[in-house]
């Protein structure tokens, strides 16, 4: 197995190191051949049965690196919001990137970046996607276990609400109008935020059939102003199509 990163904060790879109870069992079954965050013994040019890719394609060299990784990997699993939707850095998509660079960096000419931050799946075929910022540890273990035994991983593409209700949480949206993106967000976190009595902010990105307009209509009825609506959908997974479109609708 190899662990590679593109434009990202390293938090999702860290989840792998955070699998403390399972790491030894994992190391028995899997040779971790390339994992810069954990080891200085590297094999960046090797071939792999499985590659975990973190981060989005944000700079030209990352595109080339990604194509090379894919060519050497039997299975490629993307981990996290950056790799699956472009990440928080996709907020720049469609904006004045040159202007941003000029206003942030003292020497803009040193910066080589693409206009858009894009997910891995925009460039190469992906076998499985793990959503989230960061990814969920149980989902990571599940995908690794499933690939080892040859099972389709249990990565459910339902709403966060399904997980929330199975846990017996009270709905924060219905009981006190707390803006919660759970109804349009991909499950997998175990309804983490609602379990701590706050609304989901959509870090797992849109679920399939995400009817964002219906949820936005609800937020509006509860008194949310357009600028706030834009912020709700334009967060960590701003580059995901359904959230991007909904943000644009209220601009």
């Amino acid at each position: 197995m190899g662990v590679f990163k593109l434009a990202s904060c390293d938090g999702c790879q860290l989840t792998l190191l955070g699998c403390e109870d399972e790491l030894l069992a994992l190391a028995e079954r899997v040779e971790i051949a390339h994992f810069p965050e954990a080891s200085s013994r590297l094999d960046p040019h090797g071939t792999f049965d499985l590659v975990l890719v973190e981060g989005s394609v944000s700079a030209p060299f990352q595109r080339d690196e990604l194509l090379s990784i894919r060519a050497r990997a039997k299975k490629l699993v993307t981990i996290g919001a950056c790799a699956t939707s472009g990440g928080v850095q996709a907020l720049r998509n469609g904006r004045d990137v040159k202007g941003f660079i000029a206003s942030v960096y003292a020497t803009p000419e040193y910066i080589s970046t693409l206009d858009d931050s894009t997910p891995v799946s925009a460039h190469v075929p992906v076998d499985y996607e793990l959503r989230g910022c960061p990814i969920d540890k149980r989902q990571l273990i599940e995908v690794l276990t499933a690939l080892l035994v040859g099972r389709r991983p249990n990565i459910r593409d339902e709403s966060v609400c399904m997980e929330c209700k199975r846990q017996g949480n009270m709905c924060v949206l219905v009981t006190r109008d707390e803006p919660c993106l759970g109804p349009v967000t991909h499950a997998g976190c175990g309804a983490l935020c609602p379990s701590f009595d706050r609304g989901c902010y959509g870090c797992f990105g849109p679920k399939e059939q995400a009817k964002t307009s219906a949820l936005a209509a609800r937020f509006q009825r509860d008194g949310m102003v357009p600028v706030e609506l834009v912020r709700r959908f334009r967060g960590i997974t701003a580059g995901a199509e359904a959230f991007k479109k909904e943000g644009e609708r209220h601009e």
Partner: protein
Amino acid sequence: MRRIDRSQLEQLCHLAQRDGRTLIGPTVRDGAIALAPITTAADLPVGWTDVQAPGRYRLSRTQGQRAFDFVVGPNSAKEQFFKPREPLYRAERRADGRVGFVAIVPEPEKRALLGVRACDLAAIAVQDAVFVEGAMRDPRYASRRADTLVIAVHCTRAGSLCFCASMGTGPKVNSGADLALAEREHDLLIEALTPAGEALLAQLSSEEASGEDLRWLDESVESARASMGRHVDTRAVHERLFAQLEHPRWKEVADRCLSCGNCTSVCPTCFCSTTEDRSDLDGSTAERDRLWESCFSREHSELHGHAVRGSTEQRYRQWLTHKLGAWVSQFGASGCVGCGRCIAWCPAGIDLTEELAALSTSDARALMPVAAPCAEEGRDEAMVPSPARVLSVTRESSDVVTLALAIDEPRPFAPGQFYQLSIPGIGEAPISVSGRDGAGVEHTIRAVGSLTRALCELSPGSELGVRGPYGRGWPMRELAGAPVVVVAGGIGLAPLREALRQMLADPQQYPDVRLFYGARTPEDLLYAREMLGWTDRRGFQLSITVDRSSPTWRGNVGVVTRLLKRSTVPDAARAILCGPEVMMRFTIQALARLGVTHDRIWLTMERHMKCATGHCGRCQFGPYFVCKDGPVFRYDEVASLFGRDGI
């Protein structure tokens, strides 16, 4: 009818917990009235009421001291008996080295439910019908449900989203409880409905209710009935709904529907579930869990990797036509009890009663099958496989193999039935029986997904899990004495093979059998050698075609319906078909032109049978569960729905 002082509620809570009984009652939690384990009357929501509107639920203080001055919270008795997630079994290596499957069934639990409303009593009865009163009984539900003491409360006030009066379930408690309470500011009326309730009531300090008390109760219940916040017209609603499958309202509601599944989660009768296989990293143990699922999730209608109901429009239609329509055919009662939870807890505030009214623009009615009462005594179905061993593996084509399996304690099977084959840690899939080979039960499997691939890679001696047989097979008795036309497409020949073998072995009963078989290529033809052997049998005709030819192929090329068009069939012929849905659709048309009417055609419906016991809802097809009502149907039973998108 007796009267008790309010102070007796404490004694009631105490008595309800005797003999280690867990008391489940309403209590305030996180801004709502939840159902949870309680120990004393002080846990009850004294002085609280709920205010509900579409997509909105609020608690509000009252000036009084009533403990039951609310209608319903988000949870119901459902989760007490049908758990949101629970393990079904564990697979492990036995001492003799073989694979063992250990059922995980809870010990019988003693429960008392306090404060249950009439609508929820009806919901419990509905779930009982699903899980324990049919031909197959879920032992987990049964174990939790068996010893339940129910203390119900008459509704003397209706909520703004209530419509139990329309559904005929409330507001008065008539049955399904041991005790029924009616609460006033300072005292409660109490009535025992069962001997257990009488025994409990005898230990309370009570006095005979007066005529005035009884009048108060009647008037209060009547006033609740008259002030329901919602109303629906239930006259023949199941037949009317199925006549509106193409109504524009479905699309309209889909624009507002989040397909989040909140309605199905809070619904006290929704019973759909799915399973997940889990295993250790080292592969030493594997478990299978069952968890709540929703018809609003893509996976719920998944079949071979795509969703039968891909759009929210189709999913909403499934939810409503099942809840108020198909349910009546399946269980003889509506799946809606009028509690209003799906309206309050829908983040978008979609109002089922409003949608129903909008869909009721016409009085057109669809012909619906009538629920057949369960003929046989229920048998426990723990959904746990038995160990089986592969006796032989026959490679039929590049991606199809036939496994002959030795099954521990096999039950007899009929042609057309199916088994659930499983490999621990990988999954389970329904596979039709394709025949019997000595002691072995044969299954012909095409490698399409992870489980079927793993099955195709098994070798003689390999072990796996098997449960079954399930379902309704081919109508061998109805076919006897008549010419039989058999039409098969691709792997669809597998479920027909045993029927063919039985017919060919009995020329007196089945003198004229004609098989029309189409495959993709000559290499994909199944059982080629065996079929050649059949051609010696007098009265058997074989016509084969392939979609794509090969250099050595000298036979027909084209779809199987073209073979049929060139043929004639004898009068009174009967037909049995299995293949892709589109092939069966055209075959039925071709047969109709040849004079074979819909009531003389049988086919197998393909849906994902997950539990095979009629409990998980995955294989629903209109009013049917394909797993137990099918998979073989007479065509006229399904003609109005067959081939329609998103059913």
